[in-house]
């Protein structure tokens, strides 16, 4: 296959369809461990479909990736959904921003699922103002030393590497003194990880990480020293794409899309049954239909945005729009289920704590509009970057970061 003539989509789709019929288990079959599933895809050329071959990818395009994902939906085949962050967000960021050396070192094992990556962005004192990062990266000859802490990082307990945004220069305006560095998470001296218990009572996969003189090789920088903000922007874009299911992040097939798979919500149909059985369909009916309508419109909108990005009618950070739309819809759907099930959704018989109920799902769903950049930040991005409205005033923008800190303390 010559590089200027990639395999036609239809041919690829047919090849992928034949392969998954034989190799990929169905969702109804026993669940295959994430790593084994990712290995399987990689070893047959179906991981990193749109990544160049020299980094372990298949050297095809995002349209091929989309075709593959759609085909898994048609055939209801398992995909390594636990790897969405690693594959949909971190891999593409390293691809876009890493040096030749880091791409060659990190990408093949990431795509094969042998190393799982996550992001270390938000900190205990703030998330939306991400450029205000206080985690300190100091140069010490050929190595760096990391001190500080990160929070709300999904999957840190399972991951092998975290991509960490930290401050490497305190004497320049905040956006210009940041660096992004890869931190090994397993058995790293000076590093500890604690899971955060979420309001739903589940021990959530959100974690807090503490760095105490963690020594890192300079070769772990992704992007240049003090050029971390651009890398963070790229990472955030891929994050929104993954939540909004577009771009490299288009990893959920149509059939298992929607609230149920995204945030554990109940789809409209089962809410309708529950409300009908309990004699409240008249009152809850319109909420249910609204949730149903969203379950049709949301995937059509992502498909439209994908097509627009391909055709060039859509440019820039459209993931913010699909992220905003899908998380609001998912939350409303779970809220509807809460209304439909009534007391049966929040009360049960027996002594044990249970989490397999609509109430817990609802508690858990609250995070969707906050995680991945709050929806208020997405509304800023949509209005400023997609629609061209004026930017928010930022009085700290051009001050050296150390002065911003002094101002804050004085108040």
């Amino acid at each position, binding site marked *: 296959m010559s590089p200027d003539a990639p395999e036609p989509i239809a041919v690829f789709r047919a090849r992928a369809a034949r392969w998954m019929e034989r190799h990929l288990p169905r969702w109804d079959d026993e669940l295959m461990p994430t790593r084994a599933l990712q290995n399987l895809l990689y070893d047959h050329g179906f991981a990193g479909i749109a990544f160049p071959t020299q980094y372990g990818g298949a050297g095809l395009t995002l349209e091929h990736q989309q075709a593959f994902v759609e085909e898994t939906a048609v055939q209801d085949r398992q995909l390594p959904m636990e790897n969405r962050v690693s594959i949909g967000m971190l891999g593409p960021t390293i691809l876009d921003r890493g040096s030749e050396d880091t791409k060659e070192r990190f990408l093949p094992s990431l795509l094969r699922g042998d190393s799982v990556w996550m992001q270390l962005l938000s900190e205990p004192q703030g998330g939306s103002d991400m450029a205000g990062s206080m985690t300190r990266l100091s140069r010490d000859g050929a190595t760096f030393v990391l001190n500080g802490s990160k929070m709300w990082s999904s999957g840190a307990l399972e991951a092998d590497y975290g991509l960490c945004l930290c401050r490497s220069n305190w004497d320049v305006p905040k956006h210009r003194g940041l660096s992004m560095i890869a931190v090994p998470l397993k058995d790293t001296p000076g590093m500890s990880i604690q899971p955060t218990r979420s309001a739903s009572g589940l021990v959530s996969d959100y974690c807090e990480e503490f760095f105490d003189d963690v020594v890192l090789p300079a070769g772990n920088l992704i992007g240049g020293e003090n050029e971390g903000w651009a890398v963070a922007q790229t990472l955030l874009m891929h994050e929104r794409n993954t939540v909004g299911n577009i771009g490299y992040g288009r990893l959920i097939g149509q059939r298992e899309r929607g609230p149920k798979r995204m945030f554990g919500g109940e789809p409209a149909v089962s809410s309708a049954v529950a409300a009908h059985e309990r004699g409240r369909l008249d009152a809850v009916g319109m909420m249910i239909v609204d949730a*149903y309508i969203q379950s049709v419109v*949301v995937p059509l*909108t992502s498909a439209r945005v994908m097509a627009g990005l391909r055709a060039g009618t859509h440019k820039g950070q459209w993931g913010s729009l699909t992220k905003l739309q899908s998380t609001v819809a998912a939350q409303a759907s779970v809220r509807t289920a809460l209304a439909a099930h009534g007391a049966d959704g929040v009360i049960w018989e027996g002594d044990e704590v249970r989490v397999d109920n609509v109430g817990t799902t609802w508690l858990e769903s609250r995070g969707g509009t906050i995680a991945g950049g709050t929806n208020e930040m997405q509304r800023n991005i949509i209005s400023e970057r997609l*629609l061209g409205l*004026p930017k928010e005033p930022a009085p700290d923008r051009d001050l050296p970061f150390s002065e911003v800190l002094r101002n804050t303390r004085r108040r």
Partner: protein
Amino acid sequence: MQIELNEEQEFFRAATRRFLEAETPLSVVRDLYESRDGFDRTWWRKASELGWTSLLVPEQLGGGTLSGKPTCDAAIVAEEIGRLVAPGPFLPVNVVAASVAREGSDEQGSSVLPGLLSGEIVATWAICEPQRQWDVRDIRTSATPQGTDIVVDGAKAYVEALGSADLVLVSARTGDGLTQLLVPTGTPGVRTTPGRSIDITRRFGSITFDGARLPASAVVGEIGGAADQIAWQLDLAVALQCAELVGIADRTLEFTMQYGLERSAFGRPIVSYQALKHRIADMAVQLEGAKAVSDALAAAIDDGAASTSALASVAKAYVGTHALDIVDDCVQITGGIGVTWEHDIHLYNRRAAVDRAVFGTPEDHKNTLLTQVVATNKGPA
């Protein structure tokens, strides 16, 4: 607002926009407020020459598509009409032309289509009955065979462009089945009453049938066999209407953002405040969703997809709700000048409100979805 248009479609969109900007700018739309019909017949013939009336009719009957996807082609015109709240019986004429092309006899094809396509004849569709819904179950007007004739009794309401129409496609009931007939407005026993709407140029009317006697040759399709065709026409009407609503919302948001950039308060453009930026971001989400579902419906009709009617209900419920919400919110952002006759935004509010109501309100369609789709566990694929 389809994404991948071919060259002919792009050319057609540009030509349609130029035509509307030159012939019926908003100043002309305002002037038509006082007129009886709300549009000029000579202008309508010019619009027809552009191809507005021929897209849904196959080539061998004098029409032709640009892309092989006739509903998608027609949606382009509907969007442009929405953007300039343009006059003219685009929707009813196209529904009747498509219906005659699909189901009509050869004789109907040769006697009616040439005039419809050239703009000489104006036709409209009468389906909904007074105080009822756009639902085949609500059709009570009867079409009863007597000898070689069909006798029609009953009443229809909310018929677009009735005062200008030479022909009315009437959807009626024959026993358990449904029948459609082409009825000339001058037929004895047929009485039309003109009506207006809050829209500047769009006129409606009511029609009663009191033993109106039509020859069997007036029947479009089979007597008692029109149920599927009527459902198809409703889907088509909703698709064209949703495209118009998308055009309305798109254009309104565009000029409102422009206004908000030019208008300052407390030393800043008003749209630099998050109070407005966040509302506009939510509108952008709704607008993108409206475009996506509206385009998907047009494509589903052209593909003859199963469960297209359920998708039509989703589309009307979503687009009908959000297009009017967007225009309403834009009025709020525009402030005092937005509630004056002088500002153009009320022209858009008027059209959006009428579109919201005709061919079923979003609430009617939600009822349909609840009873027919969600509760029975069947949805669009």
